[in-house]
């Protein structure tokens, strides 16, 4: 079976140790996590993990099954890239000298749709949000001038199909109360 990039979304309670339990599911199957992001979700007190893996659909199905089985996981889903809107963020720290000495930098920043978030005497900071490939492109362009620091976030994504978490939680409320 062909390997693809899958985005796994996990809705969960916010409990200490859950990250360990979730990453263990990948560890046990020797599957590398390409990127991981944990944040609040659209529902109060419900957390959302966005995990990117490169594997076969067979494996991702099994992993989602194991994720859903965890007590503190409300639901888990997986999507291929075309079913999601996704982005990553990156920030670059660059020496201020460059900005003044190398006229091209300004053009690069403009063309890449990135923004300058901070300027000081010694360095300035550029932020870029977009697909991995767009960030990579900017990286490649800035690299020859020297990048003092670079960091890129995990993928964040929303799915085009519905995930129906709220109704699931509501259903639970009506059953138990």
């Amino acid at each position, binding site marked *: 079976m062909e390997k693809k990039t899958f985005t796994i979304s996990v809705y969960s309670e916010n409990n200490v140790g859950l990250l*360990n339990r979730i990453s263990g599911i990948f560890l046990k199957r020797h599957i590398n996590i390409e990127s991981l992001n944990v944040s609040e979700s659209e529902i109060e007190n419900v957390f959302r993990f966005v995990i990117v893996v490169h594997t076969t659909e067979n494996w991702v199905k099994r992993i989602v099954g194991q994720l859903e089985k965890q007590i503190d996981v409300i639901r888990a889903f997986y999507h291929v890239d075309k079913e999601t809107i996704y982005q990553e963020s990156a920030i670059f720290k660059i020496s201020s000298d460059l900005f003044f000495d190398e006229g091209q930098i300004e053009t690069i920043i403009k063309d890449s749709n990135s923004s300058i978030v901070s300027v000081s005497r010694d360095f300035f900071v550029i932020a870029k949000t977009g697909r991995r490939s767009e960030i990579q492109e900017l990286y490649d362009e800035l690299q020859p001038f020297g990048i003092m620091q670079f960091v890129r976030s995990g993928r964040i994504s929303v799915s085009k199909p519905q995930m129906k978490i709220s109704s699931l939680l509501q259903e639970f409320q009506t059953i*138990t109360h």
Partner: protein
Amino acid sequence: METLKEKTASTTQATTIRISGAEAVIRCLLEEGVNLVYGYPGGAIMPIYDELYKFSDHLHHVLTRHEQGATHAAQGFARVTGEVGVAMATSGPGATNLVTGLADAQIDSTPMVCITGQVARQLLGSDAFQETDIVGISTPVTKWNYQITKASEIPEIMAKAFYIARSGRPGPVLIDITKNAQFDELDFSYEKCNGIRSYKPKPEIDLSKISAAAEMINTAKRPMIVFGQGIILGQAEEELKAVVEKAGIPAAWTILGLSALESDHPLNVGMVGMHGNYAPNVLTNECDVLIALGMRFDDRVTGNLNTYARQAKVIHFEIDPAEIDKNVKTDIAVLGDVKETLELLLPLLEPNSHNNWLEEFKKKDAIEFDKVIKNDLFPEKEGLTMGEVLGQINRASNHEAVIVSDVGQHQMIACRYAKFRQSKSNITSGGLGTMGFALPAAIGAKMGAPDREVVAIIGDGGYQMTIQELGTIFQTRTPVKIVVLNNDFLGMVRQWQQLFFDKRYASTELTNPDFVTIAQGYNINARRVTKREDLAAAVDEMIASKEAYFLEVCVEKEDNVFPMIPSGASVSDIRLS
């Protein structure tokens, strides 16, 4: 002073009482109907042990000789009763000694709650004396775990622990309680847990799947059932039998499904898997519909997946959605509690009998009898076989005993030949294959079913992994019967060395101590049998004994267990010699 009766009166309706966290733990256990726990004390759990002392009239604590023994005893208790087994340990080494039992309970879906003491909240992360991250360590081998750091959390978390351990597909839960939470006071009241919003113990039943399954079964010419422990855990023995009988379907079992259907049932066609019976293994690859009930297609059952039941349509009745299509692709997945789904299936089935198909099982049984069983049960050679010992135990116990087996050749022999009339009677470590399981598990089984005969069948190797639990038997006077089938070898490994490593017996020969003397040192009646003519009488004496009894049988050293599916081979390539 309040009387103990008041002390243990249900606090469910009562208003809250102000008590210590340690006392709250005990009251939670009582609220959950627990009156027996296994464990081993130490610094970080002393406040709870102090309360155990005060509540000893209501909650019986059994001191095992090792924390691993406490887990296996709790498992034995859980497997024979269907209730949650409870084990306790202190922090650090006490907690890490629980890991094997947790892993065993996790893979065999055994309901168990383990409680560990932990260093005080303010010491966490300081590498304090006997501090270990047991929540981190036990995460992959627990259904759920949690660290309590505040006394006020105790009632809700304990209620959750029991609910999770026993509901849905059961499993082990570990609750780690810091010492300050045991000492501190809380306003205690107890409410049982009846739901967790992020946890769905039973998937909803899709009726269309049931009718599709019924139709497929009704039109099948060569249907075959393979049932697993799900039948026992789901208390679906009656439903299984009704389905088997109405549709006339031969039913085989996995090692953990054993005893869910009586051994002598005409449609019981034996064990599938590596050392299972010849007929159900070979015919797995000839049936047209394979109906899997509460089993998970373990690799020891399926052999090579690429050649497993390829010709068959597969129907999988299962409570755990993660098991569907995990190993074997199903045509119809019937999710739900197997007791409920079988109950719904039954009226849709047409009465049938598949006599010609059943004949094929009988023909293959005859081949297995001739090539294997005859020599195991009625040997003509001089040396004793493990099989004939099982035959004698069956006879003497009238098929009524609970058989607790360890891991190795003797386990396969025990599961192949032990006969049962009653469910929950075969207790063995299936998924993990934990040597050392049987002796402590037999203690738990006997305490869970005091009116039944409990016979542990153990190898000379595995016996020495938890032999110290003889001390527990001695102290508690638990009348378990212990049979060691001594071949002076780690027999199962030796068998593989003989068959697949040119007889290079690397570290599998054992120089054994005098087991009879050891048992006598614990004041346990003990006897050794080396000759066939003494066997029947010795087994009779053991079964007749009202007290614990140790029987060592010196068996042929280099016997092998057959049939056998070599690992990686197809079920239909099962070897008879």
